[in-house]
């Protein structure tokens, strides 16, 4: 009994809160993907690699050219937004009528391209921005400012995107386009433009994630591998295109990883998270927040 109670110590609380903060990181990553994958129904398998390029962008601007972090961040967001638009224009647009699996494959190719592009141009070294934010301490518990920042950015970003998607005409068009592309012209919508806007927006969100992730993680050509799959799972667990759901799902995942890791080996935390995902898919196939039909 005592052993059991021992579990409920301050460290548990710390793990819970760290889970929430990790959730912020994941939510930030999932936000842009949810827009692309969930709403306009285009598969960007290479999404995390866009974040990687953004992180390199930050690194070089800040470390090499000595640009201030706050100037570099918008530039990076712009850079990745352009990248997202280019990705759409060059790779996705020709495949819009092809089955989704072809998009998966083509963007998978882009994933290789981006990874090896980074290897070729930036080398295989791990790079670190070297900005060390202070630590927030509450008694025995300590929290990372960098993560707090991601958390806030994710929250603000989520609300902004949600409002944009539901309140504006362009947002509504973005939601409509995956359902009937041909008919969009009858609404006076230039489908190409909507796709470009969305892709650029998705890219910009990836860029935003990059700006904040670079404070916490080393950049290297394979950094995307750590985040790719889990971001996709989050989008689905939250319900495709459901931004609030995705936000919540990020925290659920993060808590499972965090607490699973606390009570057992880290790997089992992941096994647990994956298994939870599968089970949830059966219970709530349309996402955490879905009403049961």
């Amino acid at each position, binding site marked *: 009994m005592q052993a059991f109670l021992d579990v409920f110590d301050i460290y548990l609380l710390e793990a819970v809160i760290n889970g929430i903060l990790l959730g912020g990181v994941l939510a930030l990553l999932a936000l842009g993907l949810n827009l692309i994958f969930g709403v306009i129904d285009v598969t960007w398998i290479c999404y995390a690699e866009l974040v990687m390029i953004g992180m390199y962008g930050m690194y070089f601007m800040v470390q090499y050219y000595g640009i201030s972090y706050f100037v570099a961040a918008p530039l990076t967001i712009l850079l990745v937004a352009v990248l997202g638009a280019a990705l759409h224009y060059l790779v996705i647009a020709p495949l819009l009528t092809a089955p989704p699996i072809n998009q998966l494959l083509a963007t998978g*190719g882009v994933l*290789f391209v981006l990874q090896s592009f980074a290897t070729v141009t930036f080398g295989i070294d791990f790079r670190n921005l070297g900005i060390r934010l202070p630590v927030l301490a509450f008694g025995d518990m300590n929290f990372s400012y960098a993560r707090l920042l991601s958390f806030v950015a994710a929250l603000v970003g989520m609300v902004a995107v949600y409002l944009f998607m539901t309140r504006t005409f362009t947002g509504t068009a973005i939601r409509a386009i995956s359902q009937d592309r041909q008919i969009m012209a009858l609404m006076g919508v230039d489908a190409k433009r909507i796709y470009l806007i969305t892709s650029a927006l998705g890219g910009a969100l990836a860029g935003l994630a990059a700006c904040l992730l670079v404070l916490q993680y080393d950049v290297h050509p394979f950094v995307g591998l750590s985040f790719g799959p889990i971001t996709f799972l989050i989008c689905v667990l939250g319900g495709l295109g459901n931004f609030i759901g995705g936000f919540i799902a990020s925290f659920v995942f993060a808590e499972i990883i965090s607490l699973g890791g606390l009570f057992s080996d880290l790997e089992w935390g992941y096994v647990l998270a*994956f298994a939870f*995902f599968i089970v949830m898919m059966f219970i709530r*196939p349309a996402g955490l927040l879905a009403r049961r039909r």
Partner: protein
Amino acid sequence: MMGRGRLAAWGVGLAALVALPFVYRDPYHLHILVLILIWSFAYTSWSMMGRFGLVSLGHGGFMGIGAYVTALLWNHAGLSPWFGIPISMAAAGALAMIVGYPCFRFRITGHYFVLVTLALSGIVLQVITATRDYTGGSLGYTPNRASGNKLLALQFDDKTTWYLIALAIWLFGIVVWHWVDRSMARYALEAISEDEDAAAAAGVNVTAEKLKITLLSALMTALAGAIYCQYQMFITPDTVSGIAVSLQMVFAAIVGGLFVSLGPTVGAIITILLAESLRIGFGTKAVGWDNLVYGVLLVLFIIFLPKGILGSLLDRLKLQRKVPRAHEQKAVQVARPGT
């Protein structure tokens, strides 16, 4: 329904393939050939369900189970692969059922299905890694060398033997593919992939049909994993399981052509040869460029040959021979009295 000419072509082709290792003995090339055959079989197994819109990223898991269960049984229980392989296949099949049944029952399709299966291969990978006391974890796992009967242990040092085994397995895969292709089940699965309700209204037991093809595909993939393990005599979680392997299957099958029997084989040939020759070609002079070129080619293939290399090629040939589609419409209109 195979024409006489095609049957003859297949016969000649096969004879040539069987004769090959007796004429051409370069061990490295044979090694690559064996790998191509084994992977072709794995890709064919994947395409068995992939072609019906059941895009699974869980096949890395099935392959891993095939490989690891066989090897673990041999090392820890001394069970010959002749028994180990069926057991490992059964294990993969059971897993396929456990995940597949609720998936199909609850109508988990499209992206959802892709990601559920992705999680599945993630789990298998993590479990193999986490149980490193038995599986060797990321260090990989080697089946013990047979001290006695090599045949019983399914271990051969000779590349020719392996080549013939791989060829037989590959052929088996192609035969099964054709068998499914000509069965009524193909109609049902095509129908299901388009509209499950409508298929059910035509009397198709949607869940059962999907389960059957998933089971078949998983069993074959596990077999591929086990054979790969016996041939390489070494497996790591990353080479036979996990998301990367699953993606590799999807890539090759689609690059080759999902809807033709030899498509996945062509995919295996192209992707493996491309990767090998790019790597060797660029060597250590231009590190990283091989993957860059590989990725670019992959993207170009898929944009310009959306039905896969073989699929698009055959389409082009067919287009020249076949009557234009307008005739079909004429036929319909003619059959419509009164207009």
